[in-house]
């Protein structure tokens, strides 16, 4: 541990210990309770007719035969739901000038992507609902299709949203320092155009929702596989005109999310309306084919970027144009421009230069929406920056490690403000770089590479430094008008038998939120972790908060739990002091016992204090009211984001005959501030890296010229599987944030942020003898062979 010692580093502290997740045993026994598993009394099932066209006018809908089918309870169109649901618009005020058309659960007269839900059927089983779909006849009239970025930008070309001037959703520009001057005087300039395909989250459990409207109570309960129950409570309440307190959203076990399940989906909003129309629970679980055409997709960027350097290899300036396609709408309520915004602001972030110019253009197309998915914008920014740094290294004649050592911001130079406006409290790029060099045994890898090349074996070594955004303040969404909280809340109680219950607004998706919260509570109170029960994910039970996204669970949720627990501890010690006739400051709690702070001699169990307070308050001094339930809210202050940093490295082998790439080993040195549970942090990094490797090598939503997704199944869309993935070596540097007592920052994006950049650099390194380069992700065998002019 490189972090300074504090009260959190007491002997036997739970902070910094690799304890297993208490809630994982249920999942291992097949006793998870996912939304797709739930069945409520009188529950009905929804299915949707989807548009086969990527852009068309709806001429007529004939649902007569479907409505008549035995077991069908309702067939609903866009017009039916529009009567009870107000439209939503995916814009945020702080993105000046951004536009997006209003959206409804189902379209009224026009479809804008192939796969868009058009008509809903509710029936007694999913099978009957699907039978009914077959009986619905819809007449469409084709409209001109805008399938790619270039045709969307053509002046006078077809428009996706009638009445708009063009297909641009948002434009943004950054210009700091004197970029033109820096390029004019540069000794070296490197330039490249990069393409990043669309990919998608492919959570193993697809989207799942049960809406249960009770007309007698005027109350809506939604069992929703989401990260953000509070956000959806607010949205269902406002768009269906229900009082907020009558809307309850329960997020139980969830089979993966990674950002994908925190957006508003048309089907999900429709299911709420269908339940209101029927007064019965309605369930919808997307099947895999539906997931591919309706889950948000990610990336889809074309970036032209150049970098200026002086004669010694000092980076002087960068100049960037990012064009990104987002589908026909900006998603709601977080929009589809956050990714592009983060791309242009994260580019160059690890480096010291001051002259930076970037243009972002966010463009509509007739495809499903793109929006936030794990490591929003990071992999694009990292790949563009790190590839240019490697190209510069070649031009200047420096090793990849040497050029980074020369240009990465020095570890003692903080605080720093990036040329894109990000404020960094304290990062550790140089320490991470040094550690990676040792960990990879870099010099040995290079000599092995040289040796193998003589025998026609082409290995590549790549490294990539990154900056990660975590612990977002209201600067993320709140300032833009979105009702998405940046604060979290916790209610911590001492139970009558002396155990602890913590209700907290951060949610669990398997990353171990409940485990780390129980570690923090146990640690701060002085009780065993098994005596702490953590409850998450129910808006009727847990306090309102942001929940879990953008790496805020540990940093913000953890601090909330810490502060709530410290307040409870003070209250417990006050009662203990009254009983023991001591000063509270003379007492401490260790292992569930109140002890003398100095001698650690046991005085009385915490359970005895609970017993007295709950059942024999008559024995306490008059006027004493024991407060054994404490609630606390915490919103980040100080820096708008807690940035983290790290660096990844990899070694791989390219088969120049087949174009196949074999990952040999992957490395990461990561600094997420204080590590609460090293095992869980390592697992976040590993999982994140493998998602990044999927994007680097396999994953791409491939579209035809007419906007049809052509590989929308798990047989056709390639995901990383066990045999293709390498072992991953991990090391940590710890630079806690001083903005909180806990000092924790996030770690969920770090793995994904730089994995594809690493692979891009390594593949280009492997192809050096052939004078072949690759600038497009995913790096498929055919792209390798094309680069080698063998295909």
């Amino acid at each position, binding site marked *: 541990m490189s972090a300074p010692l504090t009260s959190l580093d007491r002997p036997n502290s739970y902070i910094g210990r690799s304890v297993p997740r208490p809630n994982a045993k249920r999942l291992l026994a097949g006793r998870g309770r996912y939304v797709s598993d739930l069945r409520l009394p009188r529950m009905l099932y929804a299915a949707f007719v989807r548009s086969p066209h990527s852009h068309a006018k709806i001429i007529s809908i004939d649902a007569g035969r479907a409505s008549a089918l035995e077991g069908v309870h309702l067939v609903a169109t866009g017009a039916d739901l529009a009567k009870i649901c107000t439209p939503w618009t995916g814009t945020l005020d702080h993105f000046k000038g951004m536009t997006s058309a209003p959206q409804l659960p189902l379209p009224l007269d026009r479809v804008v992507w192939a796969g868009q839900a058009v008509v809903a059927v509710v029936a007694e089983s999913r*099978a009957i609902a699907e039978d009914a779909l077959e009986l619905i006849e819809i007449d469409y009239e084709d409209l001109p299709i805008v399938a790619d970025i270039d045709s969307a930008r053509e002046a006078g070309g077809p428009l996706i949203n009638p009445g708009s001037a063009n297909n641009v959703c948002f434009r943004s520009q950054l210009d700091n320092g004197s970029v033109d001057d820096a390029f004019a005087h540069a000794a070296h300039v490197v330039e490249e155009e990069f393409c990043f395909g669309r990919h998608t989250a492919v959570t*193993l459990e*697809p989207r799942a929702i049960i809406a249960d409207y009770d007309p007698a109570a005027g109350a809506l309960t939604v069992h929703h596989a989401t990260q953000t129950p509070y956000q959806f409570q607010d949205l269902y309440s406002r768009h269906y005109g229900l009082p907020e307190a009558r809307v309850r959203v329960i997020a139980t076990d969830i089979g993966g*999310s990674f950002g994908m399940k925190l957006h508003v989906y048309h089907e999900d909003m429709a299911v709420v309306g269908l339940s209101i129309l029927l007064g019965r629970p309605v369930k919808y679980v997307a099947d895999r084919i539906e997931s591919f055409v309706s889950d948000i997709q990610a990336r889809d960027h074309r970036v032209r970027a150049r970098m200026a350097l002086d004669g010694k290899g000092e980076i002087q300036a960068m100049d960037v144009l990012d064009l990104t396609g987002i589908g026909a709408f900006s998603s709601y309520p977080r929009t589809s421009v956050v990714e592009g915004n983060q791309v242009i602001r994260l580019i160059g972030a690890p480096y010291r230069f001051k002259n930076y110019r970037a243009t972002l253009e966010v463009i509509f197309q007739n495809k499903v929406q793109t929006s936030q998915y794990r490591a929003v914008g990071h992999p694009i920014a990292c790949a563009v920056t790190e590839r240019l740094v490697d190209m510069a290294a070649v031009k200047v004649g420096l090793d990849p490690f040497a050029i980074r050592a020369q240009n990465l911001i020095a570890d003692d130079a903080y605080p720093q403000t990036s040329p894109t406006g990000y404020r960094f409290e304290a990062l550790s790029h140089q320490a991470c770089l040094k550690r990676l060099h040792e960990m990879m045994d870099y010099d040995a890898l290079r000599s092995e590479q040289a040796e193998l090349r003589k025998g026609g074996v082409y290995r590549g070594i790549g490294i990539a430094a990154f900056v990660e955004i975590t612990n977002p303040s209201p600067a993320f969404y709140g300032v833009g008008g979105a009702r998405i909280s940046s604060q979290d809340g916790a209610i911590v109680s001492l139970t009558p038998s002396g155990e602890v219950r913590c209700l907290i607004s951060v949610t669990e998706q398997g990353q171990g939120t409940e485990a780390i919260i129980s570690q923090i509570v146990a640690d701060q109170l002085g009780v065993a972790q098994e005596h702490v029960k953590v409850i998450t994910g129910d808006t009727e039970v847990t306090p309102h908060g942001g929940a879990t996204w953008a790496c805020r669970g540990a940093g913000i949720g953890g601090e909330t739990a810490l502060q709530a627990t410290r307040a409870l501890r003070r209250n417990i010690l006050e009662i203990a002091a009254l009983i023991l006739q001591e000063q509270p400051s003379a007492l401490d709690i260790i292992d569930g016992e109140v002890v003398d702070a100095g001698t650690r001699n046991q005085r009385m169990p915490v359970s005895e204090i609970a017993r007295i307070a709950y059942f024999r308050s008559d024995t306490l001094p008059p006027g004493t009211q024991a407060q054994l339930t404490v609630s606390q809210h915490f919103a980040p202050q100080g820096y708008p984001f807690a940035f983290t940093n790290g660096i990844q490295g990899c070694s791989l082998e390219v088969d120049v005959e087949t174009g196949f790439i074999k990952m040999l080993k992957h490395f990461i040195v990561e600094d997420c501030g204080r590590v609460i549970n090293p095992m869980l942090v390592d697992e976040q990094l590993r999982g994140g890296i493998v998602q990044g490797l999927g994007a680097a090598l396999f994953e791409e939503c491939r579209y035809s010229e007419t906007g049809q997704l052509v590989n929308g199944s798990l047989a056709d869309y390639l995901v990383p599987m066990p*045999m293709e993935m390498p072992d991953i070596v991990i090391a940590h540097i710890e630079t806690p944030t001083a903005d909180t007592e806990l000092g924790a920052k996030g770690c969920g994006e770090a793995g994904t942020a730089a994995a594809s950049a690493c692979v891009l650099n390594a593949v280009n390194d492997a192809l050096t003898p052939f004078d072949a380069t690759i600038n497009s992700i995913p790096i498929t065998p055919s792209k390798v062979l094309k680069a080698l002019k063998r295909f």
Partner: protein
Amino acid sequence: MIGFDESLLDDADETVRVRFTINGRKVACEVAPRETLVDCLRNVLELTGTHAGCEMGACGACLVQLDGRAVHACLMFTVQADGARIDTIEGLTESGVIADLQAEFHRRNALQCGFCTPGMLVNAHELLSQVTRPSREDIRDALSGNYCRCTGYEAIVDAIDAVAKARIESGGPT
């Protein structure tokens, strides 16, 4: 029912009686011929530990043991399983045959969301009953049809590797 229109009944309403042994108990149920085994297990028998991830045999979330071998429950119709012995994650847990695998998965956090985990365990159990000393490569290869989006697989490989070694040390498969 008054006014019931017989003509609205179609093939989908016909059911077939199927009998099998599930987790050691004899079970009979009426299923539609088109119903897959995974749907029957989950919806009719409420054994929701078996998951549906892709419904085309690519992801491994629906693996169960059928007559002792790992089988994709999404690729079989229920009627095809007539007379079979089926063991799901619930039964394998109760009988204790995978207790060491479950404990090692837990200790190493070889799961996050847990949705792939029952299928992973069924496949790991299958591997270790076929191969006593699998290499890490063998383990990765055996899991090549089990998709996990969360973990990056390494902890899963480590856990299976550790259990294989522990079983050898304790004198063979448990």
